[in-house]
């Protein structure tokens, strides 16, 4: 079981890389159009310093944007929790913001916030905000009414209600929000960097694309996806540490349960 957890993903990714290598070699594709994995690796090692320092910049913006978006959505969800009618005001606004393409909003962000870090943070936050909000709102909507009444019988204050009931109850939903937005944050930052920046992985990608330095573009893309993956697993790890009791037991029990495929095989 434990072995499979590591073995299968690594096999999957290895096969992908092998296919990539074979296609490039068999069809003899020129490097400036589609570099093979070895060329990309070479380019990554050659430009290690540049890539890593710019990756740090991208990560910083993504992290801040991610935190701001999630914090904002938790605060909004708490407001909605106490004043249900607010949802009807907030959701339309959130949908309007969501349906405007970020790539179109970034020029505005740069005009307002400059071409530095803050406009990238804003872009990341904008991308993260909607999925985070939808998830966390779902969490406060399924709050158990009788549990709330239990707190009311004991005349609990709002703060106690939030810390002892609402927050622990929405934690599984909050983690769903964090997971979805963790990978989106990097995408949002890259979009910000494409349009107006002289730093970050987005800038590396766009500037090397103009120079037809495709290997380096690939190296930067893979690095950015690595950031997203690390981000996601960091949250996943935190979730395992922080969720408790029933949810975790159910999660673990389900993992052991026979999958439908196995069930079909047996028949």
């Amino acid at each position, binding site marked *: 079981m434990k072995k499979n957890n590591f073995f299968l993903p690594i096999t999957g990714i290895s096969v992908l890389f092998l296919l990539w290598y074979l296609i490039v070699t068999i069809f003899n594709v020129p490097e400036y159009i589609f570099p093979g994995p070895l060329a990309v690796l070479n380019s990554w090692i050659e430009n290690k310093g540049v890539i890593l320092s710019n990756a740090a910049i991208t990560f910083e913006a993504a992290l801040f944007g991610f935190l701001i978006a999630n914090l904002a959505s938790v605060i909004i969800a708490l407001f909605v929790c106490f004043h249900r009618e607010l949802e009807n005001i907030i959701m339309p606004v959130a949908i309007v913001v969501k349906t405007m393409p970020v790539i179109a909003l970034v020029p505005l962000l740069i005009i307002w916030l400059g071409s530095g870090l803050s406009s990238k943070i804003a872009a990341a936050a904008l991308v993260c905000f909607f999925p985070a909000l939808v998830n966390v709102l779902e969490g406060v909507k399924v709050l158990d009414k009788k549990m709330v009444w239990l707190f009311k*019988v004991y005349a609990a204050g709002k703060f106690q209600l939030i810390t002892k009931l609402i927050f622990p109850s929405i934690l599984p939903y909050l983690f769903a929000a964090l997971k979805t937005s963790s990978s989106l944050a990097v995408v949002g930052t890259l979009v910000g960097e494409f349009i107006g920046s002289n730093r970050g992985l987005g800038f590396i990608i766009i500037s090397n694309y103009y120079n037809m330095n495709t290997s380096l573009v690939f190296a930067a893309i893979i690095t950015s996806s690595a950031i997203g993956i690390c981000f996601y697993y960091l949250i996943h790890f935190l979730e395992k540490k922080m969720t408790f009791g029933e949810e975790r037991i159910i999660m673990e029990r389900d993992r052991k349960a026979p999958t439908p495929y196995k069930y079909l095989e047996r028949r």
Partner: protein
Amino acid sequence: MEEGEFVCIVGPFGCGKSTLLELISGLRSHYEGTIKIKGENPEEARLKRRIGYTFQRPTLLPWRNIIQNIMLPLEIAQIKDSQRAYDLLGMVELSHLAKKAPYELSGGMQQLISIVRSLVLDPDILLLDEPFSSIDEINRAKMHLHLLRIHQQTNKTTLLVTHSLSEAVFLSERIIVMTSNPGRVKKIIDVNLSIRNEEILFSEEFLNYIRIIREELKNEKK
């Protein structure tokens, strides 16, 4: 109701039994007439945390273990004395469950723990809203004995809502029969069982009480 008394409310679905409890507990506040708990109106009593309430379903917080759940009212009231929670759990002889998680317990046990929790602040009145309605017959009988013992030991004024006639007769000293449409009190019956154990369930005395309540509820349908 007198202090230390155990009273049951029985009645058909929709006659306002639960609503009455919610009014007494101060959870709802739209009513005409007067409700007084030791001379205070429900809202005041609730704000002073003088009310114990157990809901129809177990409302144990899944992320807390049993003893932490029992301590919840103490925490809300900002009382540091956690010994009371252990004492109460010891009183019902369930100390061995202290560190268990709620889902590890049967539904009946969870409800029993909920009742223990509602006693932890030593309330003036204990309100039980159909606490055992979703528990199988055999376990329910065990819970009844547990509840009787709790009542004998704490001598807490208890008001229990139920639609099980045998539950009402077995547990209470007085039964309030309610009717629906419009919801009102039909009759108040005093119950004087000689003993309360499993044998009595089949005695003439016990069945007689059930017959009386049945008649009351039957008459209403006409």
